[in-house]
């Protein structure tokens, strides 16, 4: 580090990137369905399908456009229980309902197959606004002061 290179200016870009990545919304990541046969399913592994999304994982929001004539079930993170997305509907889930999204599974409940491109998924990680910032502060406070015994390495 020479005279002109202060610690601040050599690190400020890193701070900006870090701040943007942690506090601002991620880009939108779009997925378009392949053919989904009757009672078959479509799996999206976000990090593997779109490596550019990896640094934003887990994503928080998802919008599902089911333009097909079949009902589908949405299993966030391949959970055992899913949520129905009726035919011809657009349904969105946000951070409050899902919180962390690394993979998604869609099962075709119908009797015939879904044509490629008839189900469109848009997913992103939302930016931090005031309640998100409060939630982070509260979590830190909860772990540090209210229940330090829970501040352990439990998943």
């Amino acid at each position, binding site marked *: 580090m020479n005279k002109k290179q202060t610690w601040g200016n050599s690190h400020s870009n890193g701070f900006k990137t870090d701040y943007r990545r942690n506090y601002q919304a991620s880009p939108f990541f779009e997925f378009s369905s392949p053919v989904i046969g009757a009672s*078959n*399913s479509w*799996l*999206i*592994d976000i990090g*593997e*399908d779109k490596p550019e999304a990896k640094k934003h994982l*887990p994503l928080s929001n998802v919008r599902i456009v089911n333009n097909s004539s079949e009902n589908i079930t949405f299993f*966030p*993170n*391949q*959970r*055992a229980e899913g949520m129905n997305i009726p035919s011809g509907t657009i349904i969105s889930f946000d951070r409050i309902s*899902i*919180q*962390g*999204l*690394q*993979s998604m599974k869609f099962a075709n409940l119908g009797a015939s197959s879904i044509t490629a491109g008839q189900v469109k998924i848009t997913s992103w990680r939302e930016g931090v606004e005031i309640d998100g910032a409060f939630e982070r502060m509260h979590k830190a406070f909860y772990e540090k002061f209210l229940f330090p*015994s829970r501040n*352990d*390495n*439990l*998943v």
Partner: protein
Amino acid sequence: MATQLRPFTRVLNAEDMNAGLTATDVEVPTGKYTKVAYYQIPAQQQIALGAGEIANGVDSREYVQVRFDSSSGQIAGKVRVGYTNANETNIQIVKEERTDNIGTASTVKLAEVKGLRAGEDSYLVVYLNPDSSTTIDYSDADNKLLLPVTVYQ
């Protein structure tokens, strides 16, 4: 972590992990990690993946074995083992291994993962990323899942 918890080692098999002979067959597309087995932590327990360690020249680790078959034999690919929380939003992978090493005759031991356990209602999960897309035939008698864990209660 409460200090009065006493550990014992245990090995989970396919029946324990909802991947037994009667489980519903699941498609496993290549290039993606599909959840193929999971175990929910019972009440009042904490479970760490893996069992044993190397200490004082004694290797007490136990073998991990994961073999799933499609209708045309063993499925080759990558296996990931990890934890998720109860609503499956926080996923922590602790091991990735090839089926070549842990399939038919395992050469891989899984030591206890120190400092990371799953608590009540959380899950231990196994993901499979096959080399080519196929479907797991859970009723195949060649399937084998042996996952050593350490139970604290």
